[in-house]
């Protein structure tokens, strides 16, 4: 196999999948660092976002890419609501109790999707999309859109965290929660802003997974492990780390098909997770270890 074929068959799909994982992993790393628990309903929130976009496209006839912001806002609001209803009152209890609650929420969100949209696979658009040839590299429009949107969203997030008052408050809360509270940061507001962002990112991850493959009620749950592997690989709390982690996990999963039966794609994410916990639990970019 020559190099171009390798790129076309493994690297391009890997980077597209990796961009989707990156969108999820950034959210996971934010929750892990600021709210300080592993959020197990993350994947199923992504599923919900994907199906909200699906509803916008099929029921309301919204153009495909216009459905993305709609889904992001809707999922952000759902995320805030879930926090208020199910996580907020557990704040004084050990954090692992919130992890447990999030497992319950994962199940609940998935059931809602299954009741409303059923369990059959759906797609946003019908018909076959032919890739265009860019100097030998074959790319579909939606693949380009996936990677560019991921980069754009992450840049906006970074700008928000570095330049705005509440972005800085989020970083302060991640860095030293007690001192942030002593400085007068309102924790409830930080939690609200965090869930708005995380919910939006979840929806984007789900939307692009649905766009590049298909929509299924289990799609998000199956992304949970790679997303966590990406967040830990990059270093918990590191946005750039989560992006790098996502891309690495995506590419490794695709390349693993050369050596492993394709059923075991998911196992490579698990292997990366365990290796990182053994070798370097702080991740590539020296993040937190909870």
């Amino acid at each position, binding site marked *: 196999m020559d190099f171009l074929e390798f790129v076309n068959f493994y690297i391009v799909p890997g980077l597209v999948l990796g961009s989707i994982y990156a969108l999820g992993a950034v959210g996971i790393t934010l929750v*892990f660092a600021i709210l300080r*628990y*592993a959020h*197990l309903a993350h994947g199923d929130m992504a599923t919900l976002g994907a199906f909200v976009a699906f509803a916008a496209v099929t029921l309301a006839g919204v153009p495909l890419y216009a459905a993305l912001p709609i889904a992001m806002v809707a999922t952000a609001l759902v995320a805030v609501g879930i926090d208020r*209803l*199910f996580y907020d*009152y*557990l704040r004084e*209890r*050990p*954090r*692992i*109790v919130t*992890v*447990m*609650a999030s*497992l*319950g*929420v*994962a*199940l*609940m969100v*998935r*059931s*809602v999707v*299954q*009741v409303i949209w*059923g369990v059959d696979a759906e797609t946003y658009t019908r018909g076959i999309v032919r890739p265009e040839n860019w100097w030998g590299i074959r790319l579909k429009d939606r693949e380009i859109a996936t990677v560019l949107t991921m980069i754009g969203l992450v840049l906006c997030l970074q700008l928000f965290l570095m330049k705005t008052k509440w972005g800085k408050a989020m970083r302060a809360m991640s860095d030293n929660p007690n001192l942030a509270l002593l400085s007068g940061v309102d924790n409830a507001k930080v939690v609200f802003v965090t869930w708005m962002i995380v919910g939006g990112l979840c929806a984007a991850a789900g939307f692009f997974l649905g766009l590049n493959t298909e929509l299924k009620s289990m799609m998000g*749950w*199956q992304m*949970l*492990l790679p997303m*966590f592997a990406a967040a*830990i690989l990059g270093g918990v709390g590191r946005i750039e780390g989560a992006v790098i982690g996502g891309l690495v996990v995506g590419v490794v999963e695709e390349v693993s098909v050369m050596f492993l*039966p394709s*059923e*075991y794609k*998911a*196992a490579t*994410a*698990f292997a990366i*997770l*365990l290796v990182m*916990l*053994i070798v370097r*639990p702080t991740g590539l970019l020296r993040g937190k*270890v*909870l």
Partner: protein
Amino acid sequence: MEWLGLLNYAVFMAIFICIYALLAIGLNIQWGFTGLFNAGIAGFFAVGAYTSAILTSPPEAGRVGGFDMPVPVGWAGAMVLAALVAWPIGKVCLRFRSDYLAIATIGIAEIIRLVIKSEDWLTGSARGITGIPRPFGDLPYIHSQLAYLALVAGVLLVVYLLVERQIRSPWGRMMRAIRDNELAARAMGKDVPSRRLEAFVFGAALMGLGGALFAHLNRAITPEAIDPMVATFLVWIMLILGGSGNNRGAILGVAVVWVIWSFSEILTDRFPPEVAVKAKYIRVFLIGLMLQVVLRFRPEGILPEPQRGAAAKEKR
């Protein structure tokens, strides 16, 4: 006739309650007494079920085994293999907060599911493994059911007594000390990761045993026999509702949740088919909601953990 049907059903439920009680006690050792979050209960359950199935079923072409071994060997093998799967996961993750264990156990359960689905030579993939011997399986149906119930109830009683004894021993006191104040326990020179690893592996072995009992009950095991998320979650809600840290509470929780779960299934099966499908998901939604309600309004469960040791003396 009606009475016989009811009796049959009651016995069938009781067998399931005993099997789930084993899982709940296993989880209680991990979560209730040690504070470890295992989100892959179904994985350890499946390892136990398939191990015992392979060891005890008659030979079959194109698949490893069966080895036609006696049933107790299968059960022991189920416990050992579940423990062996748990060991490396615990070894890696128990140095960190339990969040990492939660993720890793989700991962291992997923991989076990993939192996079961795709490794034809080992698990028979979609066909599964059939011809698993059932103790007292030659008796007439109701007698056989009753005998199997007696058997699983006996296993449960033995496990319960052993675990209770272990929890009252110095080991159990140390586990609670670690759970309640890890820093203090470390400062006293306790080897916290090793103790946790013991609890994690021990709990996983009991889940493996539960899987074996399930496989022998059905005489067969297939990938579709258990929905991993729902099974794992049911055990969690059973333990939390019953009272984590209290084995009797765990068993009570199993009975309550299993009765609710089964009766809601009977109810929804009477709905017209298109509604019945949705109703299945609504049941799952409600069980998730139930956890949230318990966590909010009665986090200690129906039977709270008894005060032991110093705290109990103070109260007296």
